[in-house]
């Protein structure tokens, strides 16, 4: 393992992120829309149904969403690097593929956490209140875990895809379901059978739950359950991603 390799790949991701302001701002559109439209739109009904403040409930879900999307996209960017050459430059260099994968994943994860923090600040401007400043590090930990898991998932997907043709398929059949069925938008109690089970298989469920606990104190599962599921699944997905990445042939 060579730290300089991991570092330079991480650094590259960051540089690219901070350089493309348009992309940074563009990817904030969706979370803001969700916060405003859903948050203020469903707010009154949610309150009437006895759920309390909906923005309070929704904001952690939307933060998780923006991390999910940014992470998967930065992972999937490997397809571009692969077709337009830059990956070749790294693959013929005397460095290990595992280091390349780790550096990229950490870079993508860092960028995603940044994006999550920006959405958090925006949510706070829109009226989201966090419980206590002391649980922010815990929230940060959950953001990092979500970010790593889904960057690695993006890497794994990109490693087996030849081109962008299947991209809409992945958005609609993988990323969207992961988000919509994660409890980001609705409480997980009293759901009909099948949906209830699916939400519990969805890894993002535990990320959203952990974030919500850290920010507001409300939670569906035990903190330990959230952490164990995220760490274990994160490790598994990262290993699969690393394996698939090491098998890329150009």
């Amino acid at each position, binding site marked *: 393992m060579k730290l300089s390799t991991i570092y330079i790949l991480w650094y590259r991701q960051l540089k690219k992120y901070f*350089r493309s302001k348009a992309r940074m701002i563009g990817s904030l559109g969706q979370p803001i829309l969700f916060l405003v439209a859903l948050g203020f739109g469903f707010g009154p009904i949610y309150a009437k149904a006895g759920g309390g403040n909906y923005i309070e409930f929704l904001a952690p879900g939307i933060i998780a969403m923006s991390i999910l999307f940014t992470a998967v996209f930065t992972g999937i960017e490997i397809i571009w690097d692969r077709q*337009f050459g830059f990956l070749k430059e790294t693959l013929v260099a005397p460095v290990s593929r595992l280091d390349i994968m780790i550096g990229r994943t950490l870079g993508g994860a860092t960028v995603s956490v940044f994006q999550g923090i920006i959405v958090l600040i925006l949510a706070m401007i829109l009226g989201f209140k966090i419980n206590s400043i002391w649980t922010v590090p815990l929230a940060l930990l959950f953001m990092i875990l979500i970010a790593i898991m889904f960057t690695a998932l993006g890497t794994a997907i990109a490693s087996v895809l030849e081109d962008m043709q299947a991209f809409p398929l992945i958005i609609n059949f993988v990323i969207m379901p992961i988000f919509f069925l994660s409890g980001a938008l609705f409480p997980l109690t009293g759901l009909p059978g099948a949906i209830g089970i699916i939400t519990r298989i969805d890894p993002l469920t535990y990320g959203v739950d952990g974030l919500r606990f850290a920010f507001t104190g409300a939670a569906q599962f035990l903190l330990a359950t959230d952490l164990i599921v995220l760490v274990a699944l994160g490790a598994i997905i990262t290993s699969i991603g690393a394996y698939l990445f090491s098998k890329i042939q150009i």
Partner: protein
Amino acid sequence: MITVKNLSKKFDKFIAVDDISFDVDKGEIFAFLGPNGAGKTTTIKMLTTLLKPTHGEILINNFNPIDHEDKVRSSFGIVFQDPSLDDDLTALENMEFHGVLYSVPKITRRERIKELLTFVELWDRRNDLVKTFSGGMKRRLEIARGLLHHPKIFFLDEPTQGLDPQTRNHMWEYIKELNKKEGITIFFTTHYMEEAEKHAGRVAIIDRGKIIAQGTSDKLMKDTKTKSLEEAFLKLTGHGIREEEASATDRMRQNKRMWRR
């Protein structure tokens, strides 16, 4: 410097490279020619550790790519057929990135980067993003980058494709100067036969995965009783146009504008 013995590569049922053998000596300029789809790029990929051979033996700078992957990788520099720069980084950043990946010590790195960028006349543009560069400038930057870690062998896969004659001549000046000054072995492919005739010490012609002729240009012309390498090439490989299936890269290129942020 490069030794290839009975090298083959099979994809599913398609044989891309079929039992080829050749040697390239130290300091030589060697041209590897062939029609589209003949197996040139597949061969380069095997020589540069990007693909594993199905069969046969390769020695690069006396190292076998399978047992000493990293030693082989440090021994060569490469300019790919498609640009492999990061468009969102500056010229200098692309160079730095390469230097770190190849563990070139910082002080040497800085000096060498300046020397090489000056050499390809890009030092003044070092802080510009690569996406603002023309095709010729990108190719020059790639040449500079490929040389940063003092390689013993330089692979160039169609380095002058799509460039105007001015840039092409310029590129060859760089390459030949390097070959003379640093004694780097040059292995290149091209579709411009006059380029091979003019610059290469020896050429090998590959067609349908097999090497069908190799030697100096003069020898090939003599053997085929032709007056130029182009005529010899056409006589050896035939006049029919080779159809290649569009690859994933070609399809992506068509969609590139649509998708890219």
